[in-house]
């Protein structure tokens, strides 16, 4: 439809820009998909990404200090994401805080940590490798896009071939049954949140690469966009259905839609609202088959 309305939309360049723009969202969505498959929800992406963005920008070559840890700095930022993720997980299984509240809290903690590190002066990065991620291209696509593709592949392999992935799926399907079969569910829940945290951490690093600077707001809006993309891709919020590949398709759909709207001349200010409509419509469409026989939707 957009292709018909705007000749620009059809161009190879635009395909390229859609894919490049989708990279960060794809990585974050990949992580969130595992949480959603379990039937939990994760709202911590924004905070975790902010903290990771600041961490990486202060650890690689930058204008605030003399650090130049290069790749190691990226690893630390990703590990920080893991730590935040496991924090959410432990709050869920040990303190029995519902996941939406636990992760919302962790997001706030992440933003707090990021603000402390930001300390009023924006760290601009000068690390050549990290800067090159957003600029250099391989086979026409930016390095970021390739990183995203690798994440999707890894996510898919984990979902298909590891106990962690399969159990995450099973927890969303019938958690009690796992317990009855003698499976200890809680470690897997923590592991899934930790694993998702790693993806958000990487997402924060990628945003830093795009902006050339570490910002507290690096992850702004990604939590919601990622859930939208996963749901549009067919992952149920109740868990037990969907997957990484579904989500990848969802990411592309959302990006095509927002990009298409811009291309046909709709103001970008509309984007947030449109995304909101999409997610509600997608969830509504997904529950229609279950609405028969007067079942109440909570």
């Amino acid at each position, binding site marked *: 439809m957009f292709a018909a309305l705007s000749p620009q939309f059809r161009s190879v360049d635009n395909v390229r820009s859609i894919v490049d723009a989708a990279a960060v969202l794809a990585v974050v969505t990949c992580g969130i998909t595992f949480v959603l498959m379990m039937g939990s929800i994760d709202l911590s992406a924004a905070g975790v990404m902010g903290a990771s963005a600041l961490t990486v920008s202060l650890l690689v070559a930058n204008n605030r200090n003399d650090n130049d840890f290069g790749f190691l700095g990226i690893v630390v930022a990703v590990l920080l994401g893991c730590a935040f993720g496991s924090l959410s997980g432990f709050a869920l299984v040990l303190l029995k805080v519902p996941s939406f509240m636990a992760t919302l809290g962790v997001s706030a903690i992440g933003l707090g940590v990021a603000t402390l590190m930001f300390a009023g002066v924006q760290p601009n990065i000068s690390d050549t490798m990290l800067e090159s991620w957003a600029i250099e291209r391989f086979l026409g696509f930016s390095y970021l896009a390739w990183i995203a593709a690798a994440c999707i592949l890894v996510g898919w392999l984990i979902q298909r071939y590891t106990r962690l992935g399969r159990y995450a799926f*099973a927890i969303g399907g*019938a958690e009690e*049954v796992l317990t*009855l079969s003698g*499976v200890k569910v809680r470690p897997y829940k923590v592991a899934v949140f930790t694993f998702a945290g790693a993806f958000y951490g990487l997402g924060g690093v990628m945003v830093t690469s795009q902006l050339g600077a570490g910002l507290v707001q690096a992850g702004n809006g990604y939590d919601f966009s990622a859930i939208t993309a996963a749901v549009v891709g067919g992952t149920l919020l109740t868990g037990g259905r969907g997957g990484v590949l579904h989500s990848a398709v969802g990411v592309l759909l959302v990006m095509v839609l927002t990009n298409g709207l811009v291309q046909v001349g709709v103001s970008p200010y509309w984007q947030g609202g449109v995304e909101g409509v999409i997610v509600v419509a997608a969830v509504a469409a997904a529950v229609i088959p279950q609405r028969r026989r007067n079942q109440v939707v909570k």
Partner: protein
Amino acid sequence: MNALEVRGLVKHYPGVKALDGVDLVVRPHEVLGLAGENGAGKSTLLKALVGLVAPDKGQILVRGEPVKLRNVVDAADHGIGMVFQEQSLVPNLTAAENIVLGSEGAAVRRGVYRWDTMRRLAQEQLDKIGSNIDPLARTDTLTFAERQMVEIAKVLRIEERSQHPPVIILDEPTSVLESKEIETLFAQIRRLREFASVVFVSHRLDEVLDVCDRVTVLRGGRSVGEVATAGAVPRELHRMMIGSTGSDDHYHGNAATPVVSEQPRLSVRGLSGRSFQDVDLDVAAGEILAIVGVHGSGREDVCRALFGAEPTTAGEIRMDGAKIELPSTRAACAAGIGYVPAERKVEGMVGSMSVAENMTLAKQKARCTGPFVAPRKQATLVDRWIRRLSIRTPRRDTAIGRLSGGNQQKVVLARWLVGGDVRLLLLDHPTRGLDIGARSEVYRLMRELASSGVATVLLADSLEEAIGMADRILVMSDGRVTAEVACPNGGKPSPLDLVKEMV
């Protein structure tokens, strides 16, 4: 040596003594039937045997050795496995994954799946029971009977953990199966006996007698009798289960009152909907009308339509002569129609809410003064109905989910009675999942209500029930009424008469 023995097992729950010194012996290579009413302690006993319930007192011996079972895995290590009543498979995993779940062994190395190995392991289990289910099929694409085979295959995995013949517990495995599937299951059980001991639990006595070598009867948390099934008399077993000689008149036929009516209470003409066409029916005050039909006959939908829960496209409904519209369940409630749904746990009650709240759910006015709940008014009202229907509950604010099925059903029934304005009751499988004693209670209640002038439409659980209870029977087939059979006391039709109209 006995494969499994239970000595003097005791389990208290707050306010209830679920097990009161149960003894049980399971011999190698036998099928032991476990019979008892709901609330007799069957499920607690079974849970104790697989480590889901820790007994307060008593011993469990496996091949003569006393054991402590802390969880399902413990029990499996001792060779005890259970096929649960509510199916315990993960619907969105493959059959193979479900079979090996929790004991993947070689199928998962360092957290990574070996799909080929898993498929092979699962196939081995399925081969044991001669099932040709594709191990890589998603579980929710299988039929109920197939899923049950998967469960049995899953339980048989415990053979790998212990060198001894396993003990397989089947908890009410037949409750949702069709008769042909039940035959398959029984063949399976006889096959299991070759290399295992089986404990078979069912509330259908004929099945227990059919497939078991021996029956142990539980009542009130104790073992009250043990009978070899060869030569057992069903009535004797019934008596053991209920504890008294019990009335032979299961359906309380002598309490039935002759129907006298000039004008029908409910009169339906030409009712059509998605799965039924042109349905005419009349029910008089005090009459019990049963609708029978095979699955897909549309009778459930007619019943729901009469409660405004299923859209209709044409037709006229009259109550006591006045035309009414039923666009919603709210309208039906207002018209004095009550509905007891088939899925009690899902549609019939709110499990976590109290008996009192469940009872007053539909008739809020009965417990309120103005917009506020009047606690004392509610208490008197609820207590009166608890007494009148002899509902066994510790207190009126006990969560309904903790009562036995029969008592839950009575509360659901009471919901329509507290308002005092019910004119028509729609009973959709009101005795489903209830044991004999509770059924009999529900039948008695139905008689009482009928004699007080309530008109009843009954979708019975079995043909026998329909014949036993009804004054008149409508037969439906493919969404149409195909026959109407009078069913007075003393002139009851035979099931055969009805079946030939149904198909």
